[in-house]
């Protein structure tokens, strides 16, 4: 019986000198995998235009009905996005989102991307609804690339997504 006790303590002692597998969250944040699906971002083109054209295909693909898109017509003098249509409102209810990434797949312009941010907590339900202002990346913060999945499958993105004005 004593032997068993020392055997157990020995295991503890052995692990004490190993590198721990846990991290000190939130001080330390574990990096996520490249294809991790976290909080959404709406990307821009290189010229600063919104990639989102307000087509609502993400909302149609969403199995959790988490996305609301209200489209409107672009003002030709000051367009938000290439083409005639843009998303006047774009909202994602993060309480509903199941991070399946179907919206990413459905997006014809690679505008919506599930990024690596996973710290999503809210004090109330209302603030769980991310608006377009929350989702859209600032103009200087780069633009969307071809999603890695397409690279791996050796497929080119659909023509509208190739437009890089």
């Amino acid at each position, binding site marked *: 019986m004593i032997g068993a006790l020392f055997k157990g303590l020995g295991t503890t002692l052995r692990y004490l000198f190993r590198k721990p597998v846990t991290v000190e969250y939130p001080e330390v944040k574990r990096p996520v995998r490249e294809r991790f699906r976290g909080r959404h971002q709406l990307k821009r083109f290189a010229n600063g235009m919104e990639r989102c*054209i*307000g*087509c*609502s*295909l993400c*909302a*149609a693909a969403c199995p959790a009905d988490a996305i609301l898109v*209200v*489209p*409107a*017509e672009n003002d030709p003098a000051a367009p938000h996005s290439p*083409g*005639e*249509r843009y998303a006047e409102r774009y909202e994602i209810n993060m309480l509903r989102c199941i991070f399946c990434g179907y919206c990413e797949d459905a997006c*014809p*312009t690679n505008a919506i991307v599930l990024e690596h941010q996973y710290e999503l907590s809210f004090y109330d339900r209302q603030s769980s609804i991310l608006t377009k202002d929350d989702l859209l990346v600032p103009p200087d913060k780069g633009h969307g690339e071809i999603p890695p999945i397409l690279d791996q499958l050796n497929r080119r993105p*659909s*023509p*509208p997504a190739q437009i890089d004005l």
Partner: protein
Amino acid sequence: MPDVTLVIDGQTVTVPAGTNLVDAARTAGVTIPVFCYHPKLKPVGMCRMCLVEVWTPKIDPATRQVVMGEDGKPVMALMMGKLQPGCVTPVSEGMEVRTTTPKVRFAQKGQLEFLLTSHPLDCPVCDKGGECPLQNLTMQFGPSTSRFDYADKIHFEKPVPLGDLIYLDRERCILCSRCVRFQDDIAGDPVLGFDNRGRAWEIISKSDPPFDSKFSGNTTDICPVGALTTADFRFKARVWELRPTPSICPHCPVGCTISLDMRYDRLMRVMPRENEYVNEIWICDKGRFGMRFIESPERLRHPLIRKGDTLTQATWDEAIALVAEKLRAIRTHAGATALGGLASPDLPNEDLYLFQKLFRQVLGSPNIDCCTGAPGAPEIIDLGATLGVGKGTNLANLGTGTAVLVVGADPEEEAPLYVLRLRGIVARGGDLTVINPYPTKLDRTPARVIHPRAGTEAFVALALIKVVIDEELVANEFVTRRVRGFDDLKARLREHSVASLCDVAEVAEDTVRAAAHAFARAEHGIIVYGRVALTIGADLLNALADLALLTGHIGKPNSGFIPLIPGANARGALDMGVRPGSGKKRGLSAREMWTAAREGRLRGMFIAGLDPVRDNPAVASALDALEFLVVQDIFLTETAQYANVVLPTASIAGREGTFTNAERRVQRFRQARIPEYNTPAGWDIAQRIARALMSGNREAVTSTDPTDGRTAQRPCVQTGTSTWDYVVASDVADEIATTIRGYTDTTYESLGLTRKPQWGRQPNEAIFYDGTSYENMEGVGVQIAAEADNPKAVFTLQARVPSPIPEDDAHPYILLAVPRAYDGRAWARDSKLLPRMIKPHLILSTVDAAALEATPGALVRIASDAGQAVLPVQIDRHLPRGLALIPDVNGAPLSAVQTSPLTRVAITLHISESVEIR
């Protein structure tokens, strides 16, 4: 037509000779893909999508006999040695059609690949995406890849306005010409056409203002791609997000079956629903674009109660209690006849029924009417309930053997869809005669046009009768059985000849004779009359009734009268008894109510949905004299400004109910959203008032016994039908079904039972109808019987020769108020049609304008015994001399000059400089 038997993909089908292969295949459930072909349009074979293999029995050129093979079967030969377009190839006996062979599949793939070479990859932003035949067919028949480089696509400037309502995207257009053919053949407004050729081939509008048609919205429906989109729905929503709600158009007596496409609680667009009995798959622009008022921010949200000079917000309980208290007080001290009610003929049957029940049963007053009683408003003469088109009428089936008389009506303005229906009858071989004092758009259809001198239309009708009698075209068997007074009529007409009657009306005798022959000899005879006929009055309508009776065009399907009485549910208002003479005791008409109010005999009024002050500002003095006025409306109207209590009500989107259309078809509309601002339906308001009246002081609630007019002190709640415990609209409809004659089958259950497959719908309907209209899942409605449908009903001939209108040198012109669809009234709020609203003006003939030295736009002064008004002039070169027209639009000073529906006026030049009208 003889039937033809052929084989399509192994299935043997029998169809009438002359059917094209696409339609024949549809009956067999075989899909032949099409773009330019549409079941409602004539085939042109432009898109080559319907190419199929057609094999026909080989004919020996020498003997003209079918060559038989060794197995005893005919030797088959491929027609013309190549694929044939199915939409323009008629069926023939023994034909064999193959639609799935590799050759056909190759052609379909190639055709789609070719169409897509110049089609942009716009689907994510295209409004047609999701209900697009090009998408559907590409998925079903198209190639998975294209050999053409994406970068080589031709690009045009994106949206080109084809008018202020319709946008054209030339990149998306596949040049199928459906829109051009719709405008040319169906709408009769040939305003679209092709321009250029080759790659630059494009659709253009040929009219000024561009795309000037009341049916322009339909072209966006039948467009098989997203080339034509409406300004109203552009980029509003994706079609799969819409929730189509079955509804009925509340704008005119046609009662088009429509769908309100809602996204959550917002109206996104209005689309037609198929109903072969009413609107086929079309609707007019007024119905399509004129529905934005339901979301207007100007809508009334709360009940208002007058405190001093202002109307202040109140709760429903306060408002209803005040209404009940005041109405009860007036009845106690001045009697029930001191109360009057006006209800709009645009309200649904449920509202109208409970409105009259509130007055007749609870308040005990017979004073109710469904018009505003403006001096120029014509008396409502209704031939629909007695001699209306028989039960089972379907104008969509009529053609050869049908004669239609359109008398004193301008269908394009009063009931636009009837233009399409009547044009359809003519296109199928029917005969159309238009009798109207001024030219209308219907004159442009292949029709016999008779323009009598204004005021003498009755003489034309009498001339028609005279021809029928003289040439022995009378339906003798019918007349002996069901008509009385024929000999008297003959005696009254003895001293008149056709020529003399035609002379009075200044019309050509041979045209009248031809019209009479066509009408009397036709199998089906239909008479449509409208506002101008009502203006002329009983002389004309009695003569028309006699004409229909003498020729036997009464009491059978597809024959009889179609009255276009102003108001979307005027038919329902008359049937529900919202007329002073409908009850057992005659009450005051609207016009009499104003006099009574000024004299102090009428003390309290309830006006629902009408705006008498707008129609006749002089009414304001009568409203001021009232002790208490309740107005129920959806906007704060001019009349509501005079009210003591204003009650907001739900629009058709926020409630359900039924409308009865001009052909007496009862149709149900569904609730599309929660009521705007939680406003109750009109029937519920009537119920709340009735309950408050009855609960407050039961002993004091009295009822005038309608049989003797004696006021009896007794509680109102006596019989089962007097209880006011309606929970939903169908409870009211159930009571209507038991109490209103003819409405037996109009409960919501019965209306739902009229669901059945429609003519156009086939198993492969998406190919033809996707994005065109909605399938009718709600039923086609129930047509109620007219009195004449009862084979025992007997009618008396009443026509007599009227005395012509005396000439008046001081007032040489005859003034007619003519209806306009785009009248700028409350329905037009927030609509894209606002720029098309007609501003008040006067229309004169070229001769008269020249005599006055008035150029278009000059201001003229119109003076009558009633007063005068100044209006800009428009000149119509087709208008006869001596006639002046004022369109009945918002702001037209009709009540200032009209003394009667047909007023004589003097016109003088006021200012000759031009004023912009449009």
